[in-house]
């Protein structure tokens, strides 16, 4: 729980106040925390691309949104990222469980894992890759960056880091 608590604390410190998620077992603790938090808005959504739309609307209404998802969700959302979030310069945080990285027991997750960083790079999305608990200290710098450059930013959380949180 320690890692999930730290991630949420840092996101909130960065002003993030509107959260959506498409579930992942590595995000389960974070979702539990968000469901109980009365200071922010939280909801699950069925699909990531739709979440990008809801987050864009939330930004128009003066919220600072975040969507929690697996890295597979980036694949589901490429057009929405480019032709909505980036076209209209909408700041948003992608909090991504990086399935398929070392420690992952499901082999089939490896395919998206191999291309996740390349997709983010192609999309030119500033990315914080978190492998250890100390990397989480940089979250606020990245959320501030999203607001300043009016852009999506991504926070990738390795399987091994998140697994530690669920033991």
């Amino acid at each position, binding site marked *: 729980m320690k890692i999930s608590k730290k991630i949420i604390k840092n996101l909130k410190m960065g002003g993030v106040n*509107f959260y959506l998620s498409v579930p992942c077992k590595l995000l389960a603790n974070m979702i539990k925390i968000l469901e109980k938090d009365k200071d922010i808005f939280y909801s699950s959504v069925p699909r990531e691309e*739709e*979440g990008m739309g809801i987050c864009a609307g939330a930004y128009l209404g003066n919220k600072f949104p975040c969507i929690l998802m697996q890295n597979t969700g980036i694949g589901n959302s490429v057009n*929405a990222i480019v032709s*909505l979030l980036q076209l209209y310069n909408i700041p948003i945080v992608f909090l991504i469980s990086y399935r398929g990285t070392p420690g992952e027991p499901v082999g089939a997750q490896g395919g998206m894992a191999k291309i996740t960083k390349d997709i983010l790079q192609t999309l030119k999305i500033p990315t914080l890759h978190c492998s250890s608990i100390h990397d989480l200290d940089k979250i606020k710098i990245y959320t501030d960056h999203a607001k300043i450059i009016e852009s999506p930013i991504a926070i990738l959380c390795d399987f091994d880091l998140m697994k530690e949180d669920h033991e």
Partner: protein
Amino acid sequence: MNRFKLLKTIQADLKDRLVICNIGLPSQELYKIKDQTNYFYMLGSMGLASSIGLGLALSQKKDVISIDGDGSVLMNMNTLATIGNRAPNNYTLLILDNESYGSTGDQNSFTGEKTSLKEVAIGCGCKKVIECDATETSDNLRNAIKDKKNSYIIISKIKPGNVNVKPIPLNPITIRDRFRKFLGLVSYL
């Protein structure tokens, strides 16, 4: 009545509302009738007008109307479940159902065959779902906005057909910022 004529009949209902308008001809026709700063024209991301409006309605108190099409709702049908479970009372989704993909050359959509968006929306948990003729749309929209206790989905059955319009000349950041200025969030315009 086609989309252009229908959009003309609801001009008074859209006044001072936060309007999220679907990509392509719906936005271009709305722009041609009369451009307003409280209109957010979508220039990309087909399917997401309903979702953008939902996020906006959840984030502030003013009334929000998403103007969507049958093809776009079919593309992002999962969001009807989110609307059924989470839509606040200031949210109205107006689906202009012409049973075709108007912006891409009037190809037939499934709402002209076996699919009923009304039944889908009800199945998704949406309580106030109205399917109506084009001529009843303005009255239904006005009543939906007036009702402060419920969100609505209005499916307006219209005829296919488009008018000759040009792409919207506005820069996306201009659309964004004048819309946010209407909400009191931008001071520099």
